[in-house]
């Protein structure tokens, strides 16, 4: 059974159609990259996976571990191992990063039938994960994302991911705006978590991240549809030719169908 199966997914907001029939299958152990220009619907797909209910699903289905994901509340999805690193992490003034994570981790552990971690064990665990993403300890006690730089926010998402130990992690443009050192840290974080049990969907705009996180499959999302799927070479090809190369194809296809 595949970990994630998206079939003919149509998503819209009010009258606007954003996703127009997306099919995607992800198995455990795989790393998928989704590339596409701004506005093609990448974040919409990511947010729908995480359970954002401001989007309307007009057609299609999503199966996660064989079950209908769309019926499941966001927190239940998280507890079942789904994680989204937000393109725009949300600032939560007044809630400390580390205490929030402790509550989140314990909610997940409880769901898994594991014992809740006490303050000491949690801290040991968290320190280990911080080392993984080379995160500054001071960010622990600050309110979630508040006053973080762009890079700190992205790294904090990877840190949350490492702590929450997901089964399927979706990273939405976690590389955008990162300098090369920060990019490597993010990539190292992801690579160290790669395993047979886990899968990743890496949404990115640029090919560069994929030099460090080598994907098994690359998809191109254009105007709400996956127009091309291939191996890691596809990313390089895109880098060279740009999306207009495929836009032309979409157009031709549309003409051919007409």
């Amino acid at each position, binding site marked *: 059974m595949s970990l994630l199966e998206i079939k003919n997914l149509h998503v819209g907001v009010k009258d606007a159609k954003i996703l127009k029939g997306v099919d995607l299958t992800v198995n455990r152990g795989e790393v998928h990259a989704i590339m596409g220009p701004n506005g093609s619907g990448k974040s919409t797909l990511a947010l729908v996976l*995480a*359970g*954002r209910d401001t989007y309307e699903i007009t057609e299609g289905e999503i199966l996660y571990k064989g079950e209908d994901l769309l019926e499941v*509340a*966001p*927190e239940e*999805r*998280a*507890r079942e191992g789904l*994680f*989204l690193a*937000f393109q725009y*992490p*949300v*600032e*939560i*003034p*007044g*809630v*400390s990063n580390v*205490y*929030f*994570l*402790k*509550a*989140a*981790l*314990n*909610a*997940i552990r409880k*769901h898994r039938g594991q014992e809740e971690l006490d303050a000491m064990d949690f801290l040991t665990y968290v320190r280990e994960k911080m080392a993984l993403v080379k995160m500054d300890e001071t960010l622990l006690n600050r*309110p979630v994302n508040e006053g973080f730089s762009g890079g700190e926010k992205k790294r904090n998402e990877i840190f*949350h991911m490492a702590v*929450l130990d997901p089964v399927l992690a979706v990273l939405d443009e976690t590389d955008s705006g990162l300098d090369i050192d920060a990019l490597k840290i993010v990539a190292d974080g992801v690579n160290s978590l790669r395993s047979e049990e886990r899968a990743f969907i890496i949404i990115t705009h640029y090919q560069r991240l994929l030099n460090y996180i080598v994907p098994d499959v690359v998809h191109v999302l254009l105007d709400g549809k996956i127009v091309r799927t291939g191996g890691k070479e596809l990313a390089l090809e895109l880098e060279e030719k740009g999306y207009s190369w495929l836009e032309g194809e979409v157009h031709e296809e549309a003409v051919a169908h007409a």
Partner: protein
Amino acid sequence: MPETIAAVSPAGLAPEAEVYTRAFARVAVERTDHEPSRIGTLRKAAIDRFGELGFPNRKLEEWRSTDVRAIATTTFSFEPSAELVSEADCARFRYDNTHELVFVNGAFRSDLSRLQELPDGVIISSLEQGWREHPELIEPHLGRHAKFDNHAFVALNTALHENGVFVFFPRNAVVETPIHILHLGRGGDSPVASFPRNLFVAEENSQGRIIEQFATAGDTDTGGNHFTCPVTEVVLAQNAVVDHYKLQRESTDAFHMATFQIYLGRSSNFSSHSISWGGGLVRNDVNAVLGGEGCEATLNGLYMVGGTQLVDNHMRVDHVAPHCDSHELFKGVLEGHARAVFNGRIFVHKGAQKTDAKQTNRNLLLSPTALVHSNPQLEIFADDVRCTHGSTVGRLDELGIFYLRSRGIGEEAARSLLTYAFCADIVQRIKDKSVRRDLEEFLFRRLPQGDVVRQAV
């Protein structure tokens, strides 16, 4: 000082006000043998003024959003039912390591009070005892700051007050142990009205902390109705530092109409945090006069109300002297059909140059039926000042809730967490550990999934 002139209610006293004038004839006279004659005259003037004013109605600007008819039409007893309250009723409100004075329906209960040894010259006593033993210390202040000309409830308190607290910090005294004044009300078949009158005097270069707690004996939710109408005058001389807390946690049936009047002398520093979660109909008038150069007033507050509760914080800060700072931050959380009024007036007098006044009122509505009237007002008659004010009314950030949920936190817990976070900057400003813990515990109890909040903050 320019004053707004409140309309006077039509001639002829409303029947509901007459009860109070009759009570005055009976009650006040018995209780005043220990007072100087000025106070007797003042009491008489106050009840006469109340007779003219009557209870405020909503045509008056200052009472536009707060309807006190429920108070006017309730028949109160003026006799404290003190014997109904025991140590067990007090226990859960006590704070360790404080000088604790307990009042029940306005009557001083020395049997329930616990005064520790005091530094030389420091006085903490009932007002009545204060008048007997130190009239010369009270006489210069009592009734000279809180004005009743335009305020029916100050008039009632001035006329009818039976007792209260007198606190005196002599010159250079540092009173390290906080003073805790616990006012317990007790509901019953005939609700009791009480009029505590407090005077806190901090002489030059003295320091101390005063905590006022208003609670209902018995079950806080169903403790019943009582009416508390306190007036507190606070006087800070040069360089005095006073840290004040008020916790309003009375039964949701209770009425509470309080006036808190502060005078700040040169380079003095007064800080107050007013926390309201109890009471059915609550009004706090807080008036600070920044009268001495270089003084600083911090007036912060938090209210969290639901059901049909109404809480009205009416602030007035008078910048009279130059180089003074005032900071006001009031935050409110409203559920159900609750209503909140925030009226914040900053008055910068001519000559109060280099005033720095900041006022903020933020409200969080958790239900579509809750309502806030927030009304900041600046009146500035000096030209070299910095004054800012702002007020917001908002709801929980849905994206924030989604973000928390996407990390595994349940929806209810996520809402509670964000609500707590909204309150947190007030909670964190509370320096007194007991008050702070009390407030935190209240929030953990009150917020759904409070245990998740407890471990997440």
